[in-house]
């Protein structure tokens, strides 16, 4: 347990009393304490450009009465500060008359080790790897004009104190290693980006010369893009590669299945529970329990153990992702999906590792079946309008398909589709499910949280490709 009260004039006992007193007539709520340490080291333009260390400490105090959430946060863990927050919550919830729900499920399972990745490799070692990365990439290709590489390491310790003093805690490691390469040839510039990461130590991810694979991949993508021609414009068939392209699933259906939007009936999915929303053979889960993955959590930010939640089973909508507030208001249980970026933010139902499971077909079969279309291998990012259901994502590596064969690489283009109908357009599901390399951050209501995605290759019958070639 972290010593949140060690250097404070506020004792644990006093804090527990203030919490219980504040939440007396509330339906739910808690004090969330967080201590995070993070480090980033950046190599850019042949130099170590930045090394930054951040230590962040604070609390967020939440009280919920019926549908109303009152929240107050501060950096100062002191008697005065907690009392001020308590007064603030009480003034919002003057007329609260609920009964506190003490029930919270328990589990002893852990999905990552209690380590501080920052301390497990010295600064000099990290600087050396970054310099080696720079030299390696520049020596491999004469067209390299820019290399950017960085390490991000973090350890976040959290503690949740509920009314009555029940305490839940977790220590979460997280690392990320990223490489970006820019090539210039005949006056044309293109970039390639690749990264890896997860809830583990640097050594487990960067064994010996593993970092070279990351460099090779960034360089390969940049080289492919250097040869790319304008992307087509219009509706066509799209084959998505396995792994990271699953951000399609994240944007197209994931967000629309989060509890808050469905309670408020603002999601295009809110009235589709139990109905067929995808082709047969399409099963999608949101799983917080995969060891060491970026989106995995031992407990969520309300203290609920995470789980593997089936969202869509063989085409049929089965579950939404829930935090405690939305679960209570929708008469269901929390799926351990309550997350927040940090103590400054309220909890929202969020995704963890969102995955489409494998089917039976091969990627080869899919490509062979397409007369005119595109094969998208990697994406930069995506976005969705929950209400209209329209979503986009941006290709960073894609090829045209002509008469069943992969043709030239095409320039980055945005693909746009309709969430509730896109999964009905999935006509083949591959047997090659793959997890992403561990680099995803999902944004919602101004909060970024680490997430993962996974999928096999899939064939989509019809999507609009936003190129420039008519």
């Amino acid at each position: 347990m972290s010593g949140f009260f060690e250097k404070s004039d506020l004792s644990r006992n006093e804090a527990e009393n203030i919490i219980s007193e504040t939440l007396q007539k509330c339906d739910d709520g808690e004090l969330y304490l967080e201590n995070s340490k993070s480090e980033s080291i950046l190599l850019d333009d042949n130099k170590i450009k930045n090394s930054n260390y951040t230590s962040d400490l604070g609390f967020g105090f939440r009280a919920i009465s019926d549908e109303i959430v009152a929240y107050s946060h501060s950096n100062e863990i002191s008697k005065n500060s907690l009392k001020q927050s308590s007064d603030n919550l009480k003034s919002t919830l003057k007329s609260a008359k609920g009964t506190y729900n003490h029930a919270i499920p328990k589990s002893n399972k852990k999905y990552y080790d209690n380590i501080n990745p920052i301390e497990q490799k010295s600064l000099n070692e990290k600087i050396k790897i970054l310099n080696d990365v720079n030299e390696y990439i520049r020596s491999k290709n004469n067209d390299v004009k820019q290399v950017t590489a960085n390490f991000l390491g973090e350890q976040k310790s959290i503690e949740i104190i509920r009314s009555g003093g029940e305490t839940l805690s977790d220590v979460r490691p997280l690392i990320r290693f990223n490489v970006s390469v820019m090539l210039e040839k005949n006056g044309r510039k293109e970039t390639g980006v690749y990264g890896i990461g997860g809830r583990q130590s640097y050594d487990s991810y960067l064994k010996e010369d593993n970092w070279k694979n990351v460099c090779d991949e960034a360089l390969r993508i940049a080289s492919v893009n250097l040869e790319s021609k304008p992307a087509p414009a219009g509706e066509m068939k799209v084959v998505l590669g396995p792994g990271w392209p699953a951000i399609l699933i994240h944007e197209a259906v994931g967000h629309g299945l989060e509890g808050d939007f469905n309670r408020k009936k603002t999601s295009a999915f809110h009235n589709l529970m139990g109905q067929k929303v995808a082709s047969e053979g399409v099963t999608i889960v949101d799983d917080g329990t995969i060891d060491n993955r970026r989106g995995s959590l031992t407990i969520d930010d309300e203290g609920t153990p995470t789980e593997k939640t089936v969202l869509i089973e063989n085409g049929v909508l089965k579950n939404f992702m829930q935090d405690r507030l939305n679960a209570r208001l929708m008469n269901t249980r929390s799926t351990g999906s309550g997350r927040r970026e940090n103590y400054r933010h309220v909890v929202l139902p969020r995704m963890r590792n969102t995955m489409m499971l494998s089917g039976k077909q091969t990627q080869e079969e899919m490509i062979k079946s397409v007369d005119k279309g595109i094969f998208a291998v990697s994406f930069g990012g995506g976005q969705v309008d929950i209400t209209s259901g329209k979503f986009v994502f941006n290709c960073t590596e894609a090829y045209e398909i002509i008469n069943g064969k992969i043709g030239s690489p095409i320039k980055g283009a945005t693909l746009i589709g309709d969430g509730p109908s896109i999964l009905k357009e999935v006509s083949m599901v591959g047997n090659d499910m793959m997890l992403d390399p561990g680099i995803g951050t999902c944004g919602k209501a101004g909060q970024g949280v680490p997430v993962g995605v996974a999928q096999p290759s899939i064939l989509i019958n019809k999507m609009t490709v936003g190129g420039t070639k008519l």
Partner: protein
Amino acid sequence: MVKDQEFLEKKALYCLGLAKKMGATQSSVVVNNSISETVNFRNKKLDESNRSDDLGINITTYIGKKKSSISSSNLLNDNLNTLIEKCVETTKNTPEDEFNSLPDKDLLAKTIKDLNLFDDTHVENDQKINYLKKLEASASDDKRIINTESSFSENKSNFILANSDGFCNGYKTSSFTASSVTVAKDEKSMERDYEYTNKCFLKDLDDAEELGKLAATQTIRKLSPKKIGSEKISVIFDKRIAKGMLSTFASAISASAVSRGTSFLKDKINQNIFSKRINIIDKPDILKGLGSRYFDSEGVKTETLKLVDQGTLKHYLIDTYNGKKLNLKSNGRCGGTSNLYFDNGNISFKDLLNLNSKSIYITETIGHGSNIVTGDYSVGATGFLVEQGEFKYPINEITIAGNFKDMFKNIILANDLEFKYATNSPTMMIDGMVVAGK
């Protein structure tokens, strides 16, 4: 109340002193405090109240040409001692970079004229609730509106920036924001849109009823959209989207992107990148301006810059580090632009709609489709089909694409500039973009 100047200054000077004692040859520090109080409504009822009190410190230490930084939200001297010691230690172990340094002393801001950036008014929660009640009543007037979410937020900030060359200055700012997001539904579709107002001074905020009504109107008109075919067409960008073109332009002329060679506008100084009709200005000293500032994030004085004069690029946005790399002096743009805007064009909004017999009017784009290295642009879009100057019907699930190098040359601006955000554009038309739809 936000922490006063005296408290922040004391912390800042304590850190500078400590850094020096521990072996830093130079150092700089920023201490800031911001307090914000927000009330959210949903469907005419209180939904959430949120109070945040954020204290933060950021310290950069130099040993010769070596540099490192730390940041923390814990300002207890005990913690600062540990962190500064760690920072100096890390600095020692970080390789030298010849361009690392504090800003030139003669560029630091000296005189400060009052720009009226702080309104001391405190809005009690009950007042916020009253505003939101009026707003939501007006937003939900039409029965097609099935969900309303609105928010009223009051923010007060204060900061001190100090460095070992003797610079020590800071000031308070305030902002008041109200927003309304509405969802409308008919048999065929469900759509969402929004409107908001953000001002330095409370009394300048837009009227609650007007705001709610506008959000609702903008949402209802999007109902039952159609998808159009793929074609080359003129695209008109609503002001709230047009300002994004300026943000992309600003990223592409930042000294950092230029010195790294990762901008499509590298080496374009004194060249025509827009048509002769276009002027772009960055003006830091607008009274009550949302992007106004007295100095940049390194303490360097800021002056108005005409970034683009009759189509010609005149300045990059230069900070100390990247300036030294490019052999240019900082022009006080560390941290980016201030109040950035296009000068008005010379035709009215109505005439702009009438310039072509057929065009599309874009009110929202989604996706991160701007590539600053190549200038390629491709985003998802929502809007309206315009024929003979009239809005015909809403359209969605389309993309618009082009390359900024061509798009910039083809920009035509209306004469309806307003200062609603920190970055502002009149309504904009760009000919010859490719729309992908059916």
